[in-house]
């Protein structure tokens, strides 16, 4: 039992570090290039024009904030939920672009070269799976407050 617990906590710590590292790097590398990011967001053809710029400037900071929360363990459940929502959004955006045959420059890490879209999709699915695992764990270890209260009353 002890072994199982320690093994799962090692996985959780690894997942937190991997996700935090990836998201911090992704956010930090895009902080100074909002225009390039906006150009990439426009190519996905999902968002109305008015939302492109706010997302281009806000997303890198949001990613960095979530990464810091993950590393420090601050509101782990909220951080895991935020990362999961982002990963799901990225996966859907890339998948719909692939389905529509759009040529997109991901610009996920501030890069300017084209990455094959199926590789981007695979990476996003992997990150989504990892974030879902972390979300599930964080709900187990930090369950709803009322449930805790009910347990203590019982």
């Amino acid at each position, binding site marked *: 039992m002890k072994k199982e617990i320690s093994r799962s906590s090692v996985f959780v710590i690894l997942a937190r570090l991997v996700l935090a590292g990836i998201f911090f790097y992704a956010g930090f590398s895009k902080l100074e290039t909002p225009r390039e990011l906006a150009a990439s967001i426009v*190519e996905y053809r999902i968002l109305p024009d008015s939302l492109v710029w706010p997302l281009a400037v*806000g997303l890198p900071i949001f990613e960095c904030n979530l990464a810091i929360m993950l590393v420090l363990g601050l509101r782990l459940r909220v951080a895991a939920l935020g990362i999961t929502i982002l990963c799901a959004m990225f996966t859907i955006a890339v998948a719909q672009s692939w389905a529509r045959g759009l040529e997109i420059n991901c610009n996920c890490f501030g890069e300017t070269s084209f990455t094959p879209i199926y590789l981007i999709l695979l990476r996003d699915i992997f990150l989504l799976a990892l974030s879902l695992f972390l979300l599930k764990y964080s709900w187990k270890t930090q369950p709803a407050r009322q449930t805790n209260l009910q347990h203590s009353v019982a």
Partner: protein
Amino acid sequence: MKAFSRQLLSDLFLVAVLAIFSISAALLTKGGDPKPASQPVTESTPDTEQATPEKTPSLKISSPEDDPLISTFMVSSTGRFIPHPPLDLDQFKQYIKWGKGIVIDVRTEQEYQKGHIPNSTWVPVSKFKEHYAALEKELSPYKKQLIVIYCGNRYCGTGDDAQQQFINQGFKYVGIYSGGYLEWESKGEPVE
């Protein structure tokens, strides 16, 4: 179950607050959209005039009827020179209809081959010098009239880079179609 959904909602609320905080902080520090969807052609300010390669304090077209677009885009009502104003879709279509100019696509080969604006000349900004050298004879006659370049969309920086490259080559009036290929295609305009 009720507690779970309540907690989930509360977490979602916190995520939304964090997202709004991030976007607000970013907008405060980085400012608003530098390239809004419809950019009106404005008269030049002293700062923008200084940015032009050649100081042209005022430019008077002797016969505006001959060059209606030059008169529309390059000279304001007061006759002051407006340096390289971006063209919106209507102005760009008007420019094409005018038939005396040249439209230049500065995107990558892959993007150009997938689709481009009819009759546009491809001069990728990434390999500008070699492509310009090959097309110099064809492009030189346009040095003293308005040429219009376009890139992928209104945020792509390649348009600005290409504009500077053409100016360095001695082109006097280099306009940018602000919407780029994305707007042209999404508005259902013809592509090749």
